[in-house]
């Protein structure tokens, strides 16, 4: 009788501890805001999503210190953007088992960045440090695929919550499809309309929505030097753009001088880091409204 009583108590404790561990929040670390947002939307209360990149810093070029890398190592999941995003990953030691390349499904469609210098030394022969365009989420269909990769991983990690994850994903997918359709419809009005991008980060946006886009290498907060203006003039000779797309609000002087060249400015934020206001969807809706200005 006594032994049976203890057997029951131990069984109850085991069940309780198992349930507790199964319900423990998944610690998810992401390398950029879009992935963190998708994980939060899909995982809901079952996940604890962390994006350790300080505000105002581009996560693609951020360099974490050893203590932050240790935090990544301790996470249950590490969401990677793929396409060579986050340069620090090349030098960091992270557990392979926890890494999730969210863009693996379309890695054959990565866009190579042109105009990179190749060099040669030693027996290895000619090689290049050519990069890959990495703002994959600006193609909302690719963003949907990245969200789906996160869904699939969360389902594997917490099968008990799979139904909730699928429900959450369906809502997110609806939002992303809506963005995709809205932008496609706007650009379809005049797909030959030339644009200039202030920075080469809109490759996937341009490809998906057939935006006639060429890039310069300007920073929104820095007034370009004369040689950069000269380069722009050369570009305009073959690419008669009336709009420049900026990552952030451009410097007033730059915007005024552009206006003198009959070029208007619009802001399309890649939203790589946590926005000061709103979330990924609201920022993208705002971006679409900005683009729409060029087609009015």
């Amino acid at each position, binding site marked *: 009788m006594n032994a049976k009583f203890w057997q029951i108590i131990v069984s109850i404790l085991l069940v309780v501890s198992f349930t507790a561990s199964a319900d423990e929040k998944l610690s998810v670390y992401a390398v950029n805001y879009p992935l963190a947002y998708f994980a939060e939307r899909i995982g809901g209360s079952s996940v604890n999503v962390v994006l350790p990149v300080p505000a105002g810093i581009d996560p693609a070029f951020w360099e974490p210190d050893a203590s932050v890398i240790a935090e990544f*190592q301790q996470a249950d999941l590490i969401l990677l953007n793929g396409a060579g995003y986050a340069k620090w990953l090349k030098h960091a030691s992270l557990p392979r088992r926890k890494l999730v390349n969210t863009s693996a499904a379309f890695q054959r469609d990565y866009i190579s960045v042109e105009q990179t210098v*190749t*060099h*040669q*030394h030693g027996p290895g022969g000619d090689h290049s440090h050519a990069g890959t365009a990495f703002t994959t989420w600006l193609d909302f269909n690719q963003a949907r695929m990245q969200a789906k990769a996160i869904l699939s991983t969360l389902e594997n990690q917490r099968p008990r919550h799979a139904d909730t994850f699928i429900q959450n994903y369906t809502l997110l997918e609806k939002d992303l499809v809506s963005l995709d359709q809205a932008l496609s419809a706007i650009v379809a009005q005049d797909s030959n309309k030339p644009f200039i991008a202030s920075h080469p980060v809109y490759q996937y946006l341009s490809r998906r929505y057939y935006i006639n886009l060429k890039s310069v290498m300007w920073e929104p907060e820095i007034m370009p030097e004369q040689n950069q203006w000269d380069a722009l003039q050369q570009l305009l000779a073959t690419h008669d753009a009336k709009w420049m797309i900026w990552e952030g609000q451009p410097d007033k002087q730059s915007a005024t001088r552009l206006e003198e060249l009959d070029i208007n400015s619009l802001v399309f934020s890649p939203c790589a880091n946590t926005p000061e206001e709103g979330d990924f969807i609201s920022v993208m809706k705002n971006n679409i409204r900005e683009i729409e200005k060029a087609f009015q």
Partner: protein
Amino acid sequence: MINSLYIAWHYLVFNKVRSATLVACITLIAFLPMALQLILEESQQLLQSRANSTPLLLGARGSALDLVMSSLYFDDEVPEIISMRAADEITDTGLAYAIPLYIRFQARNKPIVGTSIDYFDFRNLQIAQGRMLAVLGESVIGAGVAEEYGLAPGDSIVSSPDTLFDLAGAYPLKMTVAGILERSHTPDDQAVFVDLKTAWVIEGLGHGHEDLSRTRDSSVILNRSEDSVTANAKLFQYTEITEENMEGFHFHGDASIYPLTALLVVPDDAKAATLLRGRYLENQQYHIVRPTEVIQGLMQNIFRIKRVIDAVIAIVGLATILAIALVFALSVRLRQRELTTIFKLGCSRMTAVKLIAAEIVIIVLAAGIICAGLLYIVDANIETLVRMFILN
């Protein structure tokens, strides 16, 4: 009896050489089989426990024993090289995860184990001092390595060049010791762990140098065109990875064909393990082995040899005991005059027997003490001896 022991002791001391020879013979005959048994039991335990905790190993087709000895016990013998693609293939099956291993280089005669952070979780290795690997060029060392070389976090350890006179070979890489592992009483205590990428830098697949497009030293440039810069052999390559030059480190070629010596395959469950093994049965490039089976085979061979050695020791032991009996018999004959004197002094025959028995007791006791001492030394250094005689 005390008197007999006293006289026997003095007799043995007087005949030092004879006594020492007898003690040595008995010691050796007792010590050898016991030490052998001790070493074999320990090696069996070490080998078996390590093998049992490793579900599957994937490597290039070839010697399963070489693969297991290199991957589990960091033996010097390097198995056939496989590529990183094999790890991706295992992951793609969805049946297991793979921990890559690249064990080819050494630092201060200790194996450099290139792996991923997953290895430490899998082997349940904890950091005792410092911290875990974080970036390229760092190492985490086993407790044995730290103790032997007096290393602490923040110190450096340099990889040994592939071959001393190979000037075109891989340069030694100075690696920072980021942390020291807790003692695990496994071969991990004697290893230097680095990230796989660091191992590839040692290999020469990745390297760091000044940005050629920005260099001011024109003498390092062989040819410069609009989209290409060719450097000559004068280009200085970094031999240490620091925060300042880390950005300059890069890898060439397709990472999926980078080399590995093995993959530690951790299947989701027994069914997944069986399915995986089945899938690789017909594979011409790779094979999957169960370390437990390989080590069982090895131990069977070792114990077969041990049985032969035991038989030899038994015969030699019997011969030695007979020789010792002969020595005592001859000794009694040689001491006939001495015994006659003892009888004349009024002692009984029993006293003479007691004297000889006391001598035997002292000799056996001395041999027993020495044997116990030697066994204690063996026991204290058992890991080194096992590594010396069995693993290497």
